[in-house]
């Protein structure tokens, strides 16, 4: 699974990849987030729409990216989770710290 990164404004990076987010693809997501942060874009948006399935390893990778972004003075926000991904976020209580936004543009409107 590969992740593409798209820039919005001065410091926002939208990360998007199609496939399952799990122990195989999690490290690739971490690398994509690190590249964006190191490149001066610590405000990350992770577009979850093309991810039909996520397991706890995949969720761990998202949390790792969130922490890296915050350490760099940014944040991570999520967009459009599928029903399975939303279920895992809710059961893990992560939906409380990572509310889902409707679009990448809406994620940093505040």
């Amino acid at each position, binding site marked *: 699974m590969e992740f593409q990164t798209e820039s919005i404004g001065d410091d926002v990076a939208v990360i998007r990849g199609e496939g*399952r987010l*799990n*122990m*195989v693809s999690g490290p690739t997501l971490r690398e994509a987030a690190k590249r964006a942060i190191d490149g001066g874009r610590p405000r990350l948006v992770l577009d979850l729409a093309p991810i039909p*399935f996520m*397991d*706890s*390893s995949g*969720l*761990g*990778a998202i*949390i*790792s990216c*969130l*922490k890296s972004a915050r350490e760099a003075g940014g944040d991570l926000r999520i967009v459009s989770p599928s*029903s*399975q991904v939303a*279920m*895992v976020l809710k*059961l*893990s*209580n*992560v939906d*409380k*710290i990572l509310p889902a936004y409707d679009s990448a543009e809406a994620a940093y409107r505040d």
Partner: protein
Amino acid sequence: MTEERRDLVFSSPPDDVDAVHAFLETVWAANPGIAEFERMAFETALIELASNVIQHAAGDTGVTCVLTVSADESGLSASLTDTADAGGIVLMNREMPDELAESGRGIALIQALVDELRYERLDERNVWTISRATPPPE
């Protein structure tokens, strides 16, 4: 719905959880009457279980698993038998870790998604069983 039982044998390496996803697609195709949420919840629990088994055996010589999934009117169940050493995974009553934890959610997720999670050591094999009952009609 008639009873449907299917088996998959896989070895890691080289197989990974994609083999389990592909296998479940054949189970869902053969059982179109299972509600989407039931499929999703069961698949999530089974993938967590298979990931745990594969991950804990990764440092050794690998692991061979036999997976059986059954579907009938009462619900979905799976039995996963693996060749890893005993005691690799501690099961009982895992609490969901805090929101910023990067690991430790797998077993807690399984417990949240199934009605039964059981482990037995039989003939030098680990035998994991999960089952999820069909919810009563609303």
